[in-house]
């Protein structure tokens, strides 16, 4: 197992290197320049500024410089956000994004599993229909529409939560809810389909024939087996939640990382684009690694090392 994880981490760095390289050259293809106020600068001034950031060099040289910096953990300084180092920038803005993202993922996964399981157990009843209705709503309503609806009712009309603010846990409730819909709907759909399958399988019948109560059949046998495919979709879902959070962050005025990402692209803020891309990639690869490890924990058939073949 340790060997496997080590190998995966090695691959992680290789993948990051490739992503960084591709992004670097693609970014350089973007039209425009990082200096929006350049028409107020003289040619000499522009030259000085460009030299300061190393933009007067050839793309190849810039690439090598950037990669060497990256090796030392230096992501450069932002052109736009007060000349701050990109690492510091990400550091500050990371917490709110991670908080609502993680809250939404946890909430959506747990309630999605419950909703899907209940629907499967009460297959073809009104509970199932209701659960299917909820999950399809969750899947099809875009998070920004839900965000505005939540703002209107829970914040503006009934004044339970702040409209758009970022200070305490209270203010994170609405954005979390807006982001929860997608993972909830996705997980519930997967869970229901899988569990209906599992509930009609031979080993569930055998579990029942042992004298297990219905609850024990579900909790001890059906649930775990139904979770296997659900775990696999958590990875791609984390991607959707993270990227989807950009719009939601904007709506709720959350000083998160998503807002910066959009701004950095529209202003050709090269170091910030690079930094955020590498950071997001890193996050996703880690999520996938965790999912793969989880997969092995739940399903002994794909467990690595001594758990596998004799």
């Amino acid at each position: 197992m340790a060997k496997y994880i080590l190998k995966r981490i090695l691959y992680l760095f290789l993948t990051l290197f490739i992503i960084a390289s591709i992004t670097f050259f693609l970014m350089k293809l973007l039209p425009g320049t990082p200096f929006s106020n350049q028409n107020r600068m003289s040619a000499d001034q522009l030259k000085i500024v460009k030299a300061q950031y190393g933009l007067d060099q050839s793309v190849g040289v810039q690439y090598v410089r950037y990669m060497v910096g990256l090796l030392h953990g230096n992501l450069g300084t932002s052109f736009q956000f007060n000349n701050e180092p990109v690492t510091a920038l990400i550091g500050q803005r990371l917490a709110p994004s991670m908080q609502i993202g993680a809250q939404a993922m946890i909430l959506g996964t747990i309630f999605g599993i419950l909703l899907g399981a209940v629907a499967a157990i009460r297959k073809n009843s009104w509970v199932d229909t209701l659960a299917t209705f909820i999950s399809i709503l969750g899947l099809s309503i875009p998070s920004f529409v839900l965000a505005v609806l939540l703002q209107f009712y829970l914040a503006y009309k009934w004044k339970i939560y702040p409209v758009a603010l970022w200070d305490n846990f209270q203010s994170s409730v609405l954005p979390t809810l807006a982001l929860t819909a997608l993972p909830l709907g996705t997980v519930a759909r997967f869970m229901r389909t899988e569990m209906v399958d599992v509930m009609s399988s031979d080993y569930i019948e055998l579990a029942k024939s042992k004298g297990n109560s219905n609850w024990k059949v579900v909790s001890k046998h059906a649930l775990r087996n139904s979770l296997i495919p659900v775990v696999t979709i958590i990875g791609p879902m984390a991607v959707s939640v993270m990227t989807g959070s950009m719009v939601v962050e904007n709506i709720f005025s959350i000083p998160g990382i998503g807002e910066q990402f959009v701004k950095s692209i529209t202003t050709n803020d090269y170091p910030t684009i690079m930094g955020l891309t590498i950071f997001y990639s890193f996050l996703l690869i880690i999520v996938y690694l965790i999912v793969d490890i989880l997969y092995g924990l739940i399903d002994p058939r794909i467990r690595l090392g001594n758990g596998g073949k004799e």
Partner: protein
Amino acid sequence: MDKILEVKDLHVDFDTYNGTVHAIRGVDFHLNAGETLAIVGESGSGKSITVRSILQLLASNATISKGEVLYHGDDLLQKSDKEMDKIRGNKISMIFQDPMTSLDPTMTIGKQVAEPLLIHNNVSKKDALKRAEEVLRLVGIPNPAARMNDYPHQFSGGQRQRIVIAIAIVDYPEILIADEPTTALDVTVQAQIIDLLKELQQKIGTSIIFITHDLGVVAGIADRVAVMYAGRFVEYGSVTDIFYNPQHPYTWGLLDSMPTLDTNEDARLNSIPGTPPNLLNPPKGDAFAPRNEYAMEIDEEEQPPFFKVSKNHYAATWLLHPDAPKVTPPEGIMKRFAKFEKLGGNAK
């Protein structure tokens, strides 16, 4: 002998999109203590549904519309699901057909075998696992101590069926229902599993209901045989009765389609023409009549009752009616009758 289980006039219906399927249409049988009763019949005849009704392990669209299942005189059909949970896996347990899919792929086999003990007895986990290990040794899993923490996928098909059997017998059930336990296995393993069941029956003194469509398997294990067709029993008796003095044309057809040592190797195997009736609209008369070359007019009109052939041997065919014409069964069956005479029986 003690009747420990008695099924009376069992009817099971299935709700489907096309209407109600009358899958079981009045089945009566009993099981004596310590014996093995085999139920044979082709796929779809209702063997599995009959025995699943005993434990009420039916699909959600099935209803037991009529009948009684008396276990020591106690009607199991009147019990709630919770009360049934105390009987399942404890008093009556079941061995399933397909060992490849019957075990939970995410649970160690030690835990799976120990589970019935933990459900029904007040034992510690440690003691239950110890007992599970003993039972795994009993069913012939080599080195069980080392394999308790292995998962089903690490075992072969035959070994998995042994594990399934271990689960069924771990709590020493009074009745063991074996639903085609050898069908999914290759022939050499089949023989091993049959021997194992016979051995276990002697060791723990359980009664067995054995379901199969394989008459060869029946000869090896059963004391009594019931032949099932289209949701009803058509003939039942001792193994000798059924094999050497069969009376129902369906039983003739089944036996005749089985090659014996006398079968000429160039000869085509016999088969029963046609297919079983659609049980959405069960026939008024004998369900086998359309496929039966010996059918008479009355077979279309009226369901034949059971006629007594000898003590414990009954068959539901109008051919046994005193007024019925004498017919000559197929050649293979005549040979069987001859053997029956040699065995000291009195063939018809």
